């Protein structure tokens, strides 16, 4: 009951959020000194009044701003996000096309970040203040400090151009054709087709961008796991566990880790959010055909249906991830579950 109520509340907020986000972009993109008409018609057609009228009518640009917004929201409620001025395709279609690439990369890099982040964090906490702890903390700080656009460049230079041990940019090697779209995750689609080689190729292409993208989150997770585990280890119930005669290993595995993970979950959520922001940079370097590049182009072109579309998508994503984090909280922490 409480859970359903909670989810309903979250979803209500989502609606509110979508309205807010679209309004903000709408205002920004319409307060621009330049005019999407000029930006999107060819030099020739600007001089042609008829062309300009046609264009304006098509995009509703001839109506007052608030009408345009209501038209937009009305369409949104019908599940339509309008048509991108730049690509001239429905925004929803564009998002469907680009988002899976982004999500595939994001998930992959999250897996890397979570696995290594937690592993490093645990080692570091157990060996607190020893050499290995210093090394891991150094790595984790490097992870959160390194500019991703620069790291991507260096990785490509070193591992692809110089050493040739990593594949180049893009989602697949150039001579390979993408698998039939089912999930639009190339690795999974290739596996569905039974094409192991293709799947392997797609997986390899995830590696460098995944690492670059995940480095920040990995650093964050390492740091949080470490401090959270240390904090939990000083709790009274750990003393109780010791008094019961458990070994240190059992104490960490059975009593400390579960509790320590709770704050880590939050950080993972935040990390996932950051990841989508960092996408713009990484996708540019790795020629990754995802939402980041799409957004970058859209912003540059003042293609407001597309900007609103992307913003809404990412905001929804944020809310969904927060929801998941909260639900995970409930799984990990019975105090939350029973409230």
């Amino acid at each position: 009951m409480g859970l359903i109520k909670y989810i309903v509340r979250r979803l209500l907020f989502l609606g509110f959020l979508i309205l807010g986000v679209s309004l903000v972009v709408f205002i920004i993109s319409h307060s621009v000194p330049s005019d999407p008409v000029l930006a999107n018609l060819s030099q020739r057609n600007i001089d042609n009044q008829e062309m300009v009228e046609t264009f304006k009518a098509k995009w509703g640009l001839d109506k007052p701003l608030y009408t345009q917004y209501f038209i937009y929201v009305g369409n949104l409620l019908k599940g339509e996000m309008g048509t991108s001025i730049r690509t001239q395709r429905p925004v929803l279609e564009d998002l469907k096309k680009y988002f899976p690439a982004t999500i595939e990369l994001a998930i992959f890099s999250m897996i890397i970040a979570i696995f290594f982040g937690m592993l490093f964090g645990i080692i570091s906490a157990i060996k607190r203040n020893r050499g290995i702890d210093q090394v891991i903390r150094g790595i984790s700080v490097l992870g959160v400090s390194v500019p991703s656009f620069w790291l991507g460049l260096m990785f490509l230079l070193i591992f692809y151009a110089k050493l040739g041990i990593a594949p180049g940019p893009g989602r697949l090697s150039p001579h390979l054709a993408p698998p039939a779209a089912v999930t639009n995750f190339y690795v999974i689609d290739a596996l569905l087709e039974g094409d192991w080689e293709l799947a392997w190729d797609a997986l390899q292409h995830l590696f460098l961008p995944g690492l670059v993208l995940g480095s920040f989150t990995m650093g964050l997770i390492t740091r949080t796991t470490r401090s959270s585990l240390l904090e939990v280890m000083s709790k009274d119930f750990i003393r109780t566990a010791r008094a019961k005669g458990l070994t240190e290993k059992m104490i960490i595995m059975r009593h400390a880790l579960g509790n320590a993970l709770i704050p880590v979950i939050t950080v993972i959520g935040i990390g996932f959010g950051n990841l989508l922001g960092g996408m713009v940079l990484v996708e540019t370097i790795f020629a990754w055909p995802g939402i980041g590049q799409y957004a970058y182009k859209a912003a540059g072109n003042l293609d407001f249906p597309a900007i609103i579309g992307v913003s809404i998508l990412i905001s929804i994503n944020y809310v969904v991830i927060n929801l998941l984090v909260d639900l995970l909280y409930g799984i990990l922490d019975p105090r939350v579950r029973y409230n």
Partner: protein
Amino acid sequence: MSNEFKPLQDDDLLRINNLNVQFRTAEGVFKAVRDVSLSLRSGETLGIVGESGSGKSVTALSIMNLISNPPGEVAGEIYFNGRDMQKLSAEEVRQVRGNEIAMIFQEPMTSLNPIHTCGKQIMEPLLLHKTYSRRDAKAGTLELLKRVGIPLPEQRFKEYPHQLSGGMRQRVMIAMALACRPKLLLADEPTTALDVTIQAQILELMKDLRQETGSAIIMITHDLGIISEMCHRVVVMYAGQVVESGPLKELIRNPLHPYTEGLLKSIPAITKVKQRLHSIEGTVPSPFNMPRGCSFQPRCSYATALCAEKVPDLSQVAEDREVRCWRHGGE
């Protein structure tokens, strides 16, 4: 149950000789426990009283070898069942913990792991120290829950600590401590966090269980009322030292150390005639700034020049009565 005094014998269950515990902190070395010696027979209940920070908990934790180093450093001998706990290997100590010696902590909320069910936590020592199968352990746990007076044990078994009230949680702690039928039970302020009516329930429960299991108990508290209800013998601590020890009745009726005396007088009680309370002036000295000589001397109304000069020894004034005061020998 009787409060009769039992003379010390060589087959003491626990004997602590000259226990010293210090902590290295940012401000300096902090001597939390100084030269504490005490002993305990099987089946006996020993009370430790003293003001906050006087080293009661640290003494108890030292017995279990639970003082972590750093920052703590423990010196002295702690014989349990004839073995020096200090000399045991980590594995041997582990075998003793929860099995032969168990501990109940003051704050039942924070001392239970919030993310495991109560049942699981009670089962843990059983699975660890006894050759129980999971099913036997569960049966044993339910039995334990019943014994500590928890209604609906089947349901409580599945519940998490936060779903229980403070009194219930403390019962769970007790069940957990008793799981392996320990020879020695350390109870560190087990009822301080509880309401009076619940406290009374828990004290009754502990008395019953003591009779059943025959465990020796060290009862740590700052409430002399609880001591006089539960204990056979009492140790009074002040600023990390034992200042007085003896059988309960004698100590209450005839306190030898001025601190004990002051303490007894300053407790308001409904049995007493309403009159102005006696009060010990001043405060407990800071451990970094211990007075010369006797540590109670600045607050003591009997203090003499000698008290400010030399630290009195703990001297035996009668059979099983010791006191650290120049007025009673001291040498």
